[in-house]
């Protein structure tokens, strides 16, 4: 079975520029997560979708971050404008809605803001 696909794998931008990340979850997975992982720290949840609805975006910096999940499948995460402290790996994960099912993670997008 294909895993969670993310692109790009790496991105370098200047501060105040915009950037977008794309995620294609495992087919049939209704739950989708975006995490931010700063070097040396555990992943921090930014937003969680159930199909195309937002379940939790309490830790998403909404003044600069936005996310959408088109037709309950693919998702994009955007940062506009980027700050130096946004340098991190952005991880996408997906899971089935059934109880006790695991989440599968993509390899992430490493963002460097200079």
């Amino acid at each position: 079975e294909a895993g969670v696909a993310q692109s790009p794998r790496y991105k370098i931008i200047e501060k105040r520029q915009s950037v977008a990340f794309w995620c294609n979850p495992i087919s049939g997975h209704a739950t989708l997560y975006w995490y931010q992982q700063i070097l040396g720290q555990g992943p921090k949840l930014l937003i969680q979708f159930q199909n195309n609805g937002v379940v939790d975006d309490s830790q998403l910096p909404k003044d600069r971050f936005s996310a959408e999940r088109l037709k309950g499948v693919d998702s994009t995460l955007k940062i506009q404008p980027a700050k130096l402290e946004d340098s991190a790996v952005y991880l996408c994960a997906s899971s089935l809605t059934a109880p006790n099912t695991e989440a599968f993670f993509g390899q992430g997008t490493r963002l460097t803001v200079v």
Partner: protein
Amino acid sequence: LAKTTQPISMDSYEGQEVNITCSHNNIATNDYITWYQQFPSQGPRFIIQGYKTKVTNEVASLFIPADRKSSTLSLPRVSLSDTAVYYCLVGDMRSSGSARQLTFGSGTQLTVLP
């Protein structure tokens, strides 16, 4: 959400059994304990999940005492390739995907030495 506490790092030698303990004093009745493994430049990967007593799969065992305020991940006969960060998560996995939360702590860096 139940807060988890793990050692920051652990060292072991090849062939030894490694036990990583996680404290979760305010675990709720419906909470399950889940462990993830993360290699550098990869997303976390599910290892094992349990509710009480002992769970074993092909890669690890999970020991949970009766009070469920802690849990121990046991890796038998580790190899160099088990060097990774291990995360303990506590959450209600019996709920549907929309209510399920995956909150990561700082994790434990396990280094396996030759």
